[in-house]
């Protein structure tokens, strides 16, 4: 996945009145890599993901996946959103998971079989007949993940999927996500503002600068072995290093907002 000098402003162009969200972003994510985007709130992390998903088009530059520039959303790039409003509340868990297959015209039996498997993979075996409102926040995020993996897409775009969960559920899901990623070999772009989360998950972390006209300030290789432990000495050191940079960007954001 590649961003080549990608700029973005709402309203289409760099005209007066349109504050640029992204400056010139250049980024290359390797096949099979787990990449975390880390940055202060409102800096444009989600915009980067929306460009990759095809929900937004860049004002200039190109976004491409496997050499093809992106023109529209597609099943080759599945998205997991932060909140639960992306689920279909009138469908049961398994019907939600089947949605993509149904759009493709897969037969009912095949759909059911694949979705049952996917539910088992995300730890929701036997919960398929429940409606989303009957499930906890963590379970609803698992439905989203299952809905994404049934389409066998090789790219998974995750927009702070665990941000609204309590700490225990979050760390459980983080570990499960790493396992899932190792099994499927998918390329993951994962957005977060939680340093520890990025450190548990990522091969590399892209630190975004404060907006407007945000760019990727630096890309950090996370040289920690897997499985990762939150109580590692090295983990703490990298955490502190990232924390210093991120705090500086948050301070900048506040200063610009106050001006």
């Amino acid at each position: 996945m590649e961003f080549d000098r990608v700029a973005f402003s709402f309203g289409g162009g760099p005209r007066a009145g349109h504050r640029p969200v992204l400056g010139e972003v250049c980024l290359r994510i390797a096949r099979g890599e787990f990449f975390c985007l880390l940055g202060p709130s409102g800096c444009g992390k989600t915009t980067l993901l929306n460009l990759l998903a095809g929900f937004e088009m860049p004002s200039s530059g190109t976004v491409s996946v496997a050499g093809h520039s992106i023109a529209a959303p597609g099943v080759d790039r599945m998205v997991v959103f932060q909140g639960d409003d992306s689920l279909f509340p009138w469908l049961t868990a398994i019907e939600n998971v089947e949605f993509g297959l149904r759009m493709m015209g897969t037969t009912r039996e095949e759909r059911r079989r694949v979705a049952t498997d996917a539910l088992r993979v995300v730890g929701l075996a036997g919960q398929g007949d429940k409606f989303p409102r009957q499930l906890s926040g963590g379970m609803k995020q698992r439905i989203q993940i299952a809905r994404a993996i049934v389409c066998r897409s090789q790219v998974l775009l995750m927009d702070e999927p665990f941000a609204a969960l309590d700490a225990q559920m979050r760390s459980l899901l983080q570990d499960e996500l790493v396992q899932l990623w190792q099994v499927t070999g998918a390329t993951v772009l994962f957005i977060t503002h939680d340093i520890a989360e990025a450190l548990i998950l990522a091969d590399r972390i892209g630190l975004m600068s404060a907006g407007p006209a945000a760019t990727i300030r630096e890309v950090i290789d996370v040289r920690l072995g897997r499985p990762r432990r939150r109580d590692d000495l090295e983990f703490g050191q990298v955490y502190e290093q990232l924390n210093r940079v991120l705090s500086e960007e948050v301070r900048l954001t506040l200063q610009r907002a106050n001006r």
Partner: protein
Amino acid sequence: MKRLGIYATSVAIVLVGWQLVSALFFSPALFPGPTAVGRRAVILLQEGTLQRDVLASLGRVLAGFALGSVVGVLVGFVIGSSATFRAFFDPYVHFLRFITPIAWISPVMIWFGIGETSKVILIMYTTTFAVMLSTVAGVTMVPRNRLRAAQACGAMRWQIFLFVVAPTALNQILVGMRLAMGYSFMTVVPAEMLAAESGLGYLIIHSRLWLATDAIFVGILTLGVIGLAMDTIFRWVMHGLLGRYTSTA
């Protein structure tokens, strides 16, 4: 069961209170009590006129309501689907909101005569309006991430409409239809008072000529009773039959 008990007690208290007030403070000819009204209802039923009036009003309401709902949903989907359409129709929406269907009785009677058509059209007008507004609200309330999730799942435009927008909007549409049912009842009565030979509105206005206050009350109370019955049926369809669409997260 406990709720039923409370309902029954509430109804009993009101009936007894009504009987007392009418017996103690008014002449029965001006303000008849429930027993007098009940007696008159039985007479009207025996004559067959009450059934005839109920069926006439109900038929007009149901015809106008059904037609208006279909048109309202269709127009609502079209207007709701585009910001340009919404802006284009917005001024008329707020303009027409203040024109009661009663005001339309005169032109509608001139155009369509005093037959069934004019009454059905008036009820259709009220219903279309309420259902259209709620459909537009429902369509525009679809969460953006839900649309995006469907797009990422490979859904095409018609699939997004059929499998995401319409089911999301359904709850709002039903809420609008339920309101519209009430408006329909409020429209049918004045229409029947001004131009009809049957119906509950006719019963009420016609009885006034004979100072038959008990018959007037029969008409008024019957309106409430059939309205309540229709609403109960509607709620049952909404939450029983279509419950998966109307249970909000």
